[in-house]
């Protein structure tokens, strides 16, 4: 009994303990379940937070990538712009573009098309397209006139922003899923189009790409416009240069012909003069003998005629002598005797020579040679002939009581002396100034009509001045007077005969 009781009590206790343990375990299990649920909830919350983090991070990364892309694009743009803006050769621009775009821009496909002279689009930069691919694109563009029209109006299209229909059309034409298509415009309108594209979604284009290509297209347009303007200017310049060269050649040929004719003329004059002088001397001699009456008394009227023969013979001899002098100087047959002289003295010598004529007309003589004028090297007999011709002319055309002045100044920098022979005569009409130094030219005025002259004096003076490497010109005011200016170097190179040339117009300073 007692054993059974004890057993029952023990069994009861065991059952109670077991119940307690089970209850306790159950409680712990519930606690664990609760903890697990909490943990699971925490994990789920953590996961939700992670999703938020991913979304934020994704946006940040996209922004960062876009920023990097834009910076990279700007860098590429900067490099490309610098490269294409430093040349004005159109072909070189395209060559540099090709290199730069391949190196600096990361696109599968790049195509720059330009209108040629026949208004046909031609590829100038091509990355990633086979020839048949380009042919397909050109045909596609021809067919889609509205696309070209839109581009002409300055619209830029991209896979980011284009309308669905337009986007599909461009994708079809250019065979690229992601793209930017930009017009290249100048002041003359649409000159070409620029396209970049990627097929992979991993390298989809962005708004940044759109902006970059737009700027690049502008830069290309500007560079090409500059190059084309330069080309036009260059071509015009070349054409002008060519014309100038042709004209110069024509003038040189003409000048050579003139020189040839002039030399022939000089030779002819020289020969004729020589041939004329001998019989003229005989004529003059016989006339002189007849005048003396040694061959018998001659009637007064015959004597008068013989004196006229004598006078005209003298004139003819003078003419022939001057022609011969010009001819000799032109042909270099006259050797200048270059020695040192005082210009003042030379002028005074001429004054002495012409004093009787000046006195006859009561002409005042003024000689003003600057004290700084140094002694000069020239052929004094020839320079005296210049003065004789110029002062002689001045005497001829200066009315009574007039003034003839000779002024000389030294140009130290050029080391030459400028001499002016001025009169207060009747002056020379402006139209005649240019012909004044031409051979046989005589100004048509009353004095010349009454006074005989050869028309060779000024031409001879010019030849002598030029033989000394000087210049001669004239300034004049009708009824006020005339000044003949000429320059002589202080120490000329060896004086030489000027090249035979036609009479040049005077240089009016």
């Amino acid at each position: 009994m007692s054993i059974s009781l004890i057993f029952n009590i023990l069994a009861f206790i065991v059952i109670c303990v077991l119940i307690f343990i089970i209850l306790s375990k159950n409680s712990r299990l519930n606690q664990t379940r609760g903890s697990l649920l909490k943990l699971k909830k925490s994990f789920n919350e953590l996961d939700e937070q992670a999703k938020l983090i991913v979304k934020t991070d994704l946006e940040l990364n996209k922004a960062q990538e876009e920023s990097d892309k834009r910076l990279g694009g700007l860098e590429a743009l900067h490099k490309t712009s610098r490269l294409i803006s430093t040349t004005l050769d159109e072909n070189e621009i395209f060559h540099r573009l090709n290199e730069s775009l391949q190196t600096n821009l990361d696109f599968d496909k790049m195509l720059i098309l330009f209108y040629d002279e026949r208004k046909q689009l031609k590829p100038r930069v091509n990355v990633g397209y086979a020839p048949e691919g380009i042919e397909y694109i050109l045909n596609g563009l021809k067919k889609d006139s509205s696309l070209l029209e839109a581009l002409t109006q300055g619209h830029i299209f991209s896979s980011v922003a284009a309308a669905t229909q337009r986007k599909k059309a461009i994708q079809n034409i250019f065979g690229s899923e992601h793209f930017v298509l930009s017009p290249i415009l100048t002041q003359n309108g649409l000159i070409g189009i620029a396209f970049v594209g990627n097929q992979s979604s991993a390298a989809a284009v962005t708004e940044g790409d759109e902006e970059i290509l737009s700027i690049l297209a502008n830069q290309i347009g500007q560079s090409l416009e500059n190059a084309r303007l330069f080309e036009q200017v260059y071509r015009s310049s070349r054409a002008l240069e060519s014309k100038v060269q042709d004209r110069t050649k024509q003038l040189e040929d003409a000048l050579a012909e003139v020189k040839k004719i002039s030399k022939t003329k000089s030779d002819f004059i020289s020969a004729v003069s020589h041939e004329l002088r001998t019989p003229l001397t005989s004529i003059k001699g016989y006339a002189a003998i007849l005048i003396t009456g040694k061959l018998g008394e001659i009637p007064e009227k015959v004597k008068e005629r013989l004196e006229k023969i004598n006078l005209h013979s003298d004139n003819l001899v003078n003419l022939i002598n001057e022609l011969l002098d010009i001819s000799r100087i032109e042909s270099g047959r006259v050797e200048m005797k270059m020695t040192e002289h005082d210009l003042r003295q030379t002028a005074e010598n001429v004054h002495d020579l012409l004093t009787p004529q000046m006195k006859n007309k009561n002409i005042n003589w003024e000689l003003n040679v600057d004290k700084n004028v140094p002694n000069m090297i020239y052929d004094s007999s020839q320079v005296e002939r210049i003065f004789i011709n110029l002062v002689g002319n001045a005497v001829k055309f200066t009315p009574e009581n007039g003034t003839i002045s000779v002024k000389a100044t030294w140009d130290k920098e050029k080391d030459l002396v400028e001499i002016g022979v001025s009169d207060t005569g009747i002056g020379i009409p402006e139209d005649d100034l240019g012909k004044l130094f031409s051979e046989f030219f005589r100004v048509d005025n009353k004095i010349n009509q009454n006074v005989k002259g050869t028309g060779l004096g000024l031409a001879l003076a010019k030849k002598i001045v030029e033989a000394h490497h000087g210049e001669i010109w004239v300034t004049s005011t009708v009824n006020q007077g005339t000044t003949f200016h000429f320059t002589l170097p202080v120490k000329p190179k060896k004086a030489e005969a000027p090249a035979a040339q036609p009479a040049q117009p005077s240089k009016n300073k």
Partner: protein
Amino acid sequence: MATHIAIGSSQTVDTLTATKEAAQKIKSSLQSTKPDLVLIFSTIHHDPDTIAQAIDNLFPGSKAIGCSSAGIIFSEKIMTNGIGILAIASDEMKFGIGAVSDITPTNIRMAGSDLAKNIVADFGQHGRHVCLFFIDGEIADSSLLLKGVQEVLGNVFPLVGAGSCDDFHFKKNFQIFGSQALEMSACGLIMGGQMSVGVSGRHGWRPLGKPRVITQAEGNIIKTIDGKKASHLYEEYFDEAYQDLRATQLGQMSILYPLGIFIEESNHFLLRNAIDILEDGSIVCQGGVPDGSEVHIMIGNKDSCKEAASEAAQEAHNNLLGKKAKLVIIIESMSRLKLLGRGAILEIAKIREIFGQDIPVFGMYAHGEICPFESVERIKKPYLQNESMVVLAVN
């Protein structure tokens, strides 16, 4: 006894000219010394046949291997368009090269084994220190090729590998072996002789969100996670159907938020990029994924990348056991280039801080990296990784 190292580069568009320009810089630096090894990295913009033949002509008798890359790494710049060449002339170091071609999904492992055998045959009987090899990045499961290589060289032999790639289009890439340009191939070299190497790899990504379990996987395909179709993981996070993800965001998603496979008894995660999502929602990874593994979505940022670069460099430096590095070769994920963008050079700056500013640096951006990874056994066993940076320091 001496080792001469020269690096040349060119960004000229014409391939032949670019190769010649880069080679000329090397020749100027090496003078008349003939390089024993020429390592070539080129972006996809260049013609591989032209490069290979030009290198063969310019460096006759030198052993040459290389591959295409999304970018080429130098001490002071990163080129995303161009050609880079590293040349080593040494009577201390020994090199052996080899290649295998026509790799198909059915022969990947055998190809790895053949590759290693070819390299070993060329290397001869010298002391081996490290094997560097390049695999076509489009090969679906590169970890199988790794296993093949390990069958010949051993499970713990230091292997550094890289998947050759293009400029993020995942269309075509190439490998260079001697005068040949190859596709769907692998080429590699063994370095040995009187030298030492320090290798390390890091990624810098951290787990995000709650842990999940891969409930069904075959090779490199994850079929289900937590009993749901694998793509559900990304659909949840990106709030988009997997069809849309696949069409628009797969590249971005894969680069920024890879899957992290937790290795038991280790604090490290193996990273796997999702290279495709199949119709049934399975996720295709570049490397094998163990069934039953814990998996996380991973997240990284620029700072964590730079920190990882610094850690990898420090460990590689430590592995040299006090010897001064003469060259640093970097194999880095192209994803990091995408993530770091213009700041990618800052990682290289971190590495130079460890090895010294004058250290020659030559590297490439890869689609899948292989390097010794701390494993269960605490032995440095090579694994295929994504998103990582591998630093190979050569003394």
